[in-house]
């Protein structure tokens, strides 16, 4: 492996999306314009290329690893780059690990800058994973900035995974697909925050199968749609056994934006407890009024409400 040097655009993006401070502590793999700009394994986390020249890496976290953090950020720093990568995570039994997977796309020309990351998570029994993903689009070019993440999650018995995803600005189009299969007593928690403006388009799809007894999931998506942007939220939870599943889509809509929310629940057992909540609406006038009585202007009040909502 001969790493390509990290360019200044990448460095700036990494600071925003992955907490880069000039270095990463722990294991990491930095992907830049489809190349590798740095990689390090540790005793507990081994990062290796995928076999047979397929783009991407395998990340192996040792069983019982404690409080490891793995950074796998990706950047696209110019137009006419369509970066496709496959990252396979193998999390050993009882391991406790945080994965930071930010992505930034930048174009200063008319070419499209696109990142397409396909992540597969094989989470061993009793392991605990915290997955953080921040997306951002930047650059002055007319070219589109696209990020289309795919996450396939397999949680073994008693495994626990939290996904915390944020996309707040600059991404023209995103199509996010998350599928998960949970064994007994496994738990998946998803917190998604999304803001679209101008003509941006965002689509989110969740498909979760609660296969084992007492498995549980809690999917919460909060979004703000402004300008002429469009958002679509689809979620499907299947409960095969005694289990509990909850999904909530909460959207603030403004201007000429359009938001679609379509929940889908399949209970295949009388013991499956499945709930979906969806609420779409503009910022409540009384919320703005309350903050104005505290001395904020209408604009400041709106910003405060959105900031809290997407916190």
């Amino acid at each position, binding site marked *: 492996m001969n790493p390509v040097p990290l360019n200044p655009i990448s460095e700036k993006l990494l600071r925003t999306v992955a907490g880069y401070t000039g270095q990463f502590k722990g294991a990491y793999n930095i992907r830049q314009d489809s190349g590798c700009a740095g990689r390090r394994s540790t005793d507990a986390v081994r990062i290796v290329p995928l076999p047979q020249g397929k783009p991407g890496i395998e990340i192996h976290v040792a069983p019982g690893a404690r409080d490891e953090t793995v950074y796998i950020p990706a950047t696209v720093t110019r137009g006419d780059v369509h970066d496709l990568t496959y990252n396979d995570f193998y999390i050993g039994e009882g391991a406790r690990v945080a994965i930071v997977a930010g992505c930034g796309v930048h174009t200063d020309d008319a070419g499209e800058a696109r990142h397409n990351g396909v992540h597969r998570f094989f989470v061993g029994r009793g392991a605990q994973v915290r997955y953080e993903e921040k997306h951002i689009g930047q650059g002055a070019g007319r070219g589109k900035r696209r990020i289309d993440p795919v996450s396939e999650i397999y949680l073994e018995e008693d495994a626990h995974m939290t996904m915390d995803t944020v996309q707040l600005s600059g991404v023209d189009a995103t199509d996010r697909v998350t599928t998960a299969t949970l064994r007994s007593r496994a738990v998946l928690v998803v917190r998604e925050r999304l803001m679209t403006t101008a003509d941006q388009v965002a689509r989110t799809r969740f498909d979760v199968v609660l296969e084992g007894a007492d498995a549980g999931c809690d999917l919460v998506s909060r979004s703000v749609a402004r300008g002429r942007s469009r958002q679509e939220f689809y979620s499907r939870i299947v409960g095969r056994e005694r289990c509990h599943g909850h999904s909530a889509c909460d959207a603030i809509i403004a201007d000429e934006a359009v938001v679609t929310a379509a929940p889908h629940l399949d209970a295949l057992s009388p013991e499956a407890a499945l709930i979906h909540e969806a609420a779409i609406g503009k910022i409540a006038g009384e919320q703005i009024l309350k903050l*104005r009585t505290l001395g904020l202007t209408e604009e400041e009040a709106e910003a405060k409400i959105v900031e809290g909502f997407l916190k």
Partner: protein
Amino acid sequence: MLELRNVTWSLPDGEVIIDDLTLSIPEGRLSVVTGPNGGGKTTLAKLIAGLVKPTSGQILLGSRDITELDVTQRARLGISYGFQTPVRFKGLTVQGLLETAAGRALSFEEMCELTGKVGLCTMDYIDRDVDASLSGGEIKRVEIASVLARGTQVSIFDEPEAGIDLWSFNGLVDVFSALKQRGMTMVIISHQQRLLDIADEIIVISSGQLRVQGARDRVMPGLLAGEIAGHCPADRKVGA
């Protein structure tokens, strides 16, 4: 001093809610506004805070005409308003709301002092969202704390007792008494005798008009007599 001069406020269909009301609220005193339901008390509070604008008439704060000032401008001038039905926010924490109200970051000790005044333990609430997870009583206390956090010269509370249990209410009465000692101008909309008991001034509003206004010692006997006799002193005209 807060002054309303010939203020009228009507619904779009022409129904008059506040009817040519002229009223002076003394500075640095606790005035309790009472009267029958639907008599215009909450509208009076909203007129002062700027949530609604008079159809006609003038509102003055000191010597300044604030009739045309909006909610934000009045808030910045030093008028605070505690909602009768508090507003809920997804994602805004109790600490976030109180810091917004105070206009600055609050230390843990300051948070404790503020929430303690309304009977809430900071440890339990500092990170809680001001959303549907709070009970009616809890959010009402947070609402009152948000007014206290501002520490403005004029504070209006619309039925602060609503939804608060007796134990907490006792504490709240003490808070209002303490604020009174500090010389803050307070207007409390209330039917609660405990609050009427600590008022400097009692104002009775009915059918959008001022019926009685005066020192507590002078007005209270009439209110109590009216209660025993089964009729409301609001039926009387000013000066009667």
